[in-house]
């Protein structure tokens, strides 16, 4: 009898190459599951749970490095075969898709109807809808249009007990039942595997424009951005980039600090917003770049994708109040690369692994409890010495209990989330 207890893991066995491809923070899985239907995925989860085998959920893997090192990793669970668009009625301004659909594929379909979901995660040609939600990856326009939590109106999730359960629905206004969409947004797949998502969509604005201002002082650039964020015609995106980041994003100008502004709206609105933005730059001791930005679409894609960081560096991410951002970035030395979003009080700071622990401590000290600094990406070798999420957030006891309730055998991304969840 005892012999039967030996674990037979679900999924297919994989070779060394595929193991390496699916490795996360130096851990490799023995097997992979690539379910072709939500039902198959749910059954797979149930099988995993029965054997207490740990899975790391993979979408497009653009943010697979997010979170702490997995505590265990037996099976890779990929959602990329769940890639169908299920519904899109343009006049309803909603759509429904499987979670493994690439963000870029959905946006291309919507674009053909003059629509979009105003979420713009890095590498949309690879990133999946489910991954975008699980990683809470909204892109650069969160301050103006809201983030992932504001655009997901329905969800279907496969849980480790083999159940697929829904919440929300496909209408834009709906308060029936609990808003479990929020629970799974930013949860890194630790409570269940998202199999289907419903989104609100938006008519793409009639016009857009890009304006660049440059500054000698970072504080001035941030202040101009903060001022713009509080205007009725607030830009769709406002970023502050240091010289090196600007160059990495494809602009060769030798400006110390650049304020890059993306404007969207009705045509006339954008014209007026441009004047307003130019005035804000000048009022804050900046200079407006008179030439139109070359290839603005490409530039914004580069800025967006810059937020993914690099393999050999540590990427820190600070979120504070708008007015609290400057002091947190100020502790970064000249060896750090900075990209800040003054309209949402967020900043990415890229630093060499050797300097990361010290900088993380200093930034956390500067936040003073009114926000947080997390590690968005780090080389495997650095992960263990970095406290990825910092102290557990308030309500952590409830979060741990939610995890225990929905994933009692801790099979989903164990150890990766806040407080070791």
């Amino acid at each position, binding site marked *: 009898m005892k012999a039967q207890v030996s674990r037979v893991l679900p999924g297919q066995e994989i070779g060394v190459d595929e193991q390496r491809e699916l490795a996360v923070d130096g851990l490799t899985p023995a097997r992979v599951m690539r379910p072709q239907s939500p039902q198959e995925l749910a059954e797979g989860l149930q099988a995993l749970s029965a054997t207490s085998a740990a899975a790391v959920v993979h979408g497009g893997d653009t943010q697979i490095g997010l979170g702490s090192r997995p505590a265990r990793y037996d099976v890779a669970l990929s959602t990329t075969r769940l890639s169908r668009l299920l519904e899109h009625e343009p006049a309803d301004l909603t759509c429904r898709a499987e979670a493994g659909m690439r963000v870029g594929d959905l946006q291309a379909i919507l674009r053909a109807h003059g629509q979009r979901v105003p979420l713009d995660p890095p590498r949309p040609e690879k990133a999946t809808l489910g991954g975008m939600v699980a990683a809470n990856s909204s892109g650069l326009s969160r301050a103006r249009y809201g983030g992932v939590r504001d655009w997901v109106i329905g969800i279907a999730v496969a849980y480790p007990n083999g159940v697929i359960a829904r919440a929300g629905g496909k209408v834009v206004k709906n308060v029936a039942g609990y808003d479990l969409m929020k629970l799974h947004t930013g949860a890194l797949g630790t409570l269940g595997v998202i199999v289907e998502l419903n989104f609100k969509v938006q008519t793409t604005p009639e016009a857009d424009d890009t304006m660049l201002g440059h500054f000698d002082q970072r504080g001035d650039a941030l202040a101009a951005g903060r001022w713009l964020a509080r205007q*009725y015609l607030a830009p769709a995106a406002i970023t502050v980039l240091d010289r090196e980041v600007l160059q990495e994003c494809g602009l060769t100008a030798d400006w110390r600090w650049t304020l890059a502004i993306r404007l969207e709206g009705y045509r006339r609105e954008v014209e007026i917003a441009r004047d307003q933005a130019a005035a804000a730059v000048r009022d804050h001791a900046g200079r407006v770049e008179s030439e139109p930005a070359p290839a603005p679409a490409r530039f914004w894609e580069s800025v967006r994708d810059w937020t993914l960081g690099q393999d050999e560096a540590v990427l820190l991410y600070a979120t504070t109040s*708008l007015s609290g951002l400057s002091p947190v970035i100020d502790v970064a030395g000249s060896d750090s690369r900075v990209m800040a979003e003054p309209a949402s009080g967020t900043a990415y700071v890229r630093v060499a692994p050797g300097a990361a622990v010290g900088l993380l401590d200093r930034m956390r000290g500067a936040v003073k409890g*009114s926000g947080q600094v*997390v590690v968005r990406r780090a080389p495997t070798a650095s992960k263990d010495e970095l406290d990825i999420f910092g102290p557990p957030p308030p309500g952590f006891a*409830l979060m741990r209990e939610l995890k225990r309730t929905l994933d009692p055998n801790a099979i989903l991304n164990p150890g990766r989330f806040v407080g070791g969840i």
Partner: protein
Amino acid sequence: MESERLSRRLKAVVGERYAFTDPYEVRLYQYDASPETALPDAVVIPGSAEEVAQVARICAEEGVPIVARSGASSLCGGTVPVEGGVVITFARMDHILEIDLENLRAVVEPGVVNLALSQVLRPRGFYYVPDPSSQGACTIGGNVGTNAGGPHTLLYGVTVNHVTGLEVALTTGELLQLGPGKASELSGYDLTGLLCGSEGTMAIVTKIWVRLTPVPPVSKTLLAVFDDVTTASNAVSTVIASGILPAAIEMMDHLSIQAVEAASHAGYPLDAGAVLLLEVDGIAEVAGDVARRMAECCRAEGAREVRLARDEAERQALWKGRKGAFSAMGRLSPDFYVMDGVVPRTRLPATLDAIGKISERTGFKICNVFHAGDGNLHPLVLFDGFKEGEYEQVLRIGDEILKLCADQGGSITGEHGIGLEKRENIRYVFSDQDLSVMDQVRRVFDPGLRMNPGKVFPAAGGEAKPAVRMPAGKTTGRAGPGDEIWV
């Protein structure tokens, strides 16, 4: 004896004056804006979050239900203490604690009236966007409980999109500050988002961080007049398809117009089959042009008249008429029963048509006043509660309409909540498995099931909806011209 001990313990926390159990005194707290009633055992009016937390712990220790209530404008029995217990009301916790324009946030206590916040903010160029029609009476705490909407959700979203943090009391007596507050995000599960719309079944909100938005420089409001609801519905789709982003699109049908115009004299045409109220926010240079484009869309779909509100006074009059529509129904009927179904926009004509057929078949008049841009319907069934059997019939009509909305791919509530009223109807949109996950989540917060019991979830064992009878002589829920009921 036990209730005496409960009373003594509550008084020890909030003071003699702010806890009462006398059946005469607690009667006021037996109802909200829905027809159902139930008496609480005790009512407390705490003065601070710490007191709320202590009351919550005492309720847990004594094993009695706890129901949070403030404006009590719930249309679905959300604050009716069906299983008795302690009602916590927030009349004393009505302070705006902080306005931080630099960071676009305000921090408020749950008893702050929705409109009061925007009235304080507007002179400074900002406002709190969600504006349920009851905004003169409903509170931000109640708005969080139901994830309230309003006419302007079309462009700006609902309550949860404007709430960035909550302080909550748990049944353990713990006070927790959740969410990013003045920041834009915080790692961990989004408990703030989860609790919005949880109808007081998991925790009691004691403080709220809300996002502030710059006031639009100009709002242009159009009144478009149609011969029937179908052409009006088509106009809604045409406006949306044209690329315009309206701030609100509201519809009223012929019957509603009669009541609203008699009450408000806002200038709604009495012979219209349907009217749309369309609003666009923007800068002066653009809003007028966009309003003209919306007017063209309406004319193209057969509007027989499109009128731009000439000035702010006319605009306010139109909105006052719309927001007071429910109260105005008292002119048509001694009672009405309101529903809150949602359908995809494109299903509006078919749904309204089917509701018309239900009205014809049953002989009950049904008015439609609703948020057309969102597909959020508010059918009002007119009846007379003193006529034997009418109320029961009306409840059955309500069930039928909600089923209809669910079958069209919609929802059984867009903004009012499930509450007591629709706890069985929730099965139209969620399976047992869906509900079981939600139930597991609730029990993490409230293992003893004492937080607003009898709400949201179907009765255990799936027994039929309890026959709730309107007590004879009951006046609430009957809207006379002097009463105020909103949607």
